[in-house]
């Protein structure tokens, strides 16, 4: 008589065991994240950028602020004139200096000037291993031309990659690659610190407003409304102008503004979470406000917090670049991507690569973080997917 009953009970226990799933939450999120190509590409790009920014400058033979004026303004790829001497080429820089290049594309030296024949609109330069030869730079035409010792034009040209400075030099002869890596490091550092500070302020502010609710919430959120009606750009500029310049000023300016979005997001999450049974359970248990906020509400809102923070990084980077570009950001000799863009505008016509390269990196960083943020949002909360 007891036999069939015993079997039924065992079956019940079995079904409970089968229903248990082996993955932890983190593994689940990762699996969903990795399924999204854009998210994965974004993550790889972010990691590469971080690696370059953090260890790149120390691997580079150049420092970000060392000026080599004699080799200024050489792009990464250039068209050089074939010199009379075998295996030698000349590159005419935008400010009409002549740089000797070997056949590998290594920059050897700037040719010393011999004589300025201004009546003939020519300048002569010494060349050759012992400075025994001469070349003339003829600037009578719109496009300067090189003439050999006899006065015949050197017509043959060759496109060469710059092997000494892989991404060229800027108008002060600093290595652009090193400066890019260093600038990205500063930009990312500013963005990460700003995002972290915003995350802490916004999470606590929004969490407290949402959990306490009622009048406290109303007052706290009106403050947020007021802050966010002021155009943030204007606000950041004002803060920045009032504060001491440099890195600290910009971090303070960015940190004190962008938390309003975070506060809104967290408040919304907390408002819906606090009605859930596990929060009610914590209250019936007797857990205090602090414990409920820190162990129940915020960890459960962590998904949206992370997504918002990830999305905040590109806007902080953009804001920092913008401020540096208009000249109220990072002070030289420190470089950020924005100050590099700013420096490049002076020589924009003759050397567009100096603007293009930092702008490209800014775009890359923004794209990468946006993709990661999107991927995170979708994988943390599959129901949110549109």
């Amino acid at each position, binding site marked *: 008589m007891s036999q069939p009953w015993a079997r*039924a*009970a065992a*079956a*019940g226990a079995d*079904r*409970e*065991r089968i*229903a*248990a*799933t*082996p993955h*932890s*939450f983190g593994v689940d999120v990762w699996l969903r994240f990795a399924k999204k190509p854009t998210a994965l590409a974004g993550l790889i790009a972010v990691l590469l950028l971080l690696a370059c920014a953090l260890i790149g400058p120390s691997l580079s033979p150049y420092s970000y602020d060392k000026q080599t004026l004699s080799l200024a303004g050489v792009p990464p790829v250039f068209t050089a004139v074939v010199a009379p001497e075998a295996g030698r080429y000349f590159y005419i820089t935008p400010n009409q200096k002549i740089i000797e290049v070997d056949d590998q594309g290594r920059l050897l030296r700037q040719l010393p000037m011999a004589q300025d024949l201004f009546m003939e609109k020519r300048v002569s330069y010494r060349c050759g291993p012992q400075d025994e030869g001469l070349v003339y730079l003829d600037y009578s035409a719109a496009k300067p031309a090189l003439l050999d010792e006899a006065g015949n034009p050197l017509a043959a040209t060759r496109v060469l990659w710059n092997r000494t400075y892989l991404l060229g030099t800027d108008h002060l002869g600093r290595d652009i690659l090193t400066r890019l890596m260093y600038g990205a490091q500063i930009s990312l550092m500013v963005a990460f610190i700003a995002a972290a500070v915003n995350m802490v302020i916004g999470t606590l502010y929004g969490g407290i407003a949402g959990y306490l609710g009622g009048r406290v919430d109303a007052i706290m959120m009106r403050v947020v409304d007021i802050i966010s009606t002021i155009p943030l750009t204007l606000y950041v500029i004002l803060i920045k102008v009032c504060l001491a310049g440099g890195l600290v000023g910009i971090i303070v300016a960015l940190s004190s503004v962008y938390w309003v979005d975070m506060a809104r997001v967290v408040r919304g999450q907390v408002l819906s979470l606090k009605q*859930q*049974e*596990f929060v*009610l*359970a*914590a*209250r*019936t*248990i*007797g*857990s*205090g406000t602090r*414990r409920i906020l820190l*162990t*129940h509400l915020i*960890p*459960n809102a*962590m998904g949206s917090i992370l997504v918002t923070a990830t999305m905040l990084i590109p806007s902080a980077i953009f804001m920092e670049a913008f401020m540096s570009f208009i000249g109220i950001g990072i002070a030289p000799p420190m470089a950020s991507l924005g100050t590099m863009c700013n420096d490049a505008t002076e020589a924009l016509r003759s050397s567009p690569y100096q603007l293009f390269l930092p702008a490209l990196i800014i775009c890359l960083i923004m794209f990468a973080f946006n993709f990661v943020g999107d991927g995170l949002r979708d994988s943390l909360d599959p129901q949110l997917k549109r």
Partner: protein
Amino acid sequence: MSETPLLQIENLTQHFPVRGRGHKVVHAVDGVSFAIGRGRTLGLVGESGCGKSTCARSIIRIYEPTSGHVRLDGQDITRLSQKQLLPLRRKMQMIFQDPYASLNGRMTVRALIGEPLRAHGAAESRRDEEDRILRMLEKVGLTREHAGRYPHEFSGGQRQRVGIARALILRPELVICDEPISALDVSIQAQIVNMLRDFQQELGLSYLFIAHDLSMVRYISDEVGVMYMGQLVEHSPAEDIYAHPLHPYTQGLLASIPVPDPSLARLQDEEGLSGDLPSPIDPPPGCRFHTRCPHATGCCREEAPALRNVGGGHAVACHLV
């Protein structure tokens, strides 16, 4: 009945303001009174929306009761601040309806069960805490290997065991079970109810056991209360209510229980419940059940019946009894 009951509620009323409807309120609980003695179980039943959960939550002070009194062990806790209430919370714990929503998915089982110990500083040391958590886990039929796992790795029945372990680890005197088995598979419901009964015998617990149909509370209750639209309409010793249901609503509830053996279907010819629940914002005047009652008379539409004792501890709120 000279001894003070463990829990005594008097005229408990809970109204919720309705947004954008002037001064109208939802009459979720309206003047409910009952008492639960030590080691005893009151089963509270009623349709969905009749205010069972609200009643439970007002007792345990998730909501601030609009009026009325809740006495725990003779002490009136209705107007205590949350801070004053904190030490009393050890005596009174709750098990929730939804085993998925009532456990924080970001905490391990160890942290979940340990939370009451930490909130009350009840464990003497980390060793003691760990010991008590593991012992509790084994008592509810889980193993120590489960301690490091997260709730989503468990089935509904196992999660509800975690919820029970959490409610019992402080050794409370009163446990409010808000439909603890409604969300579970039928095969697991019996296991959970049996476990709750075992705990009652072992620890001398009192239960307020909420369910939405009478069949679920039959095996565990000493007394049964039937709620309709925020009011208690019938209250009696358990066997009595199944043998002689007096209120037409109770009779309707009993008729709606499916009976496995047709020869036992003594209530089959009686009518089940029909009609919709009226709005709890504007409850019908007089007896709230008159809109659905097959026997309603003029008197029922005008005058609200009081809960009257009809002998043998059986009380009913109906003009026709």
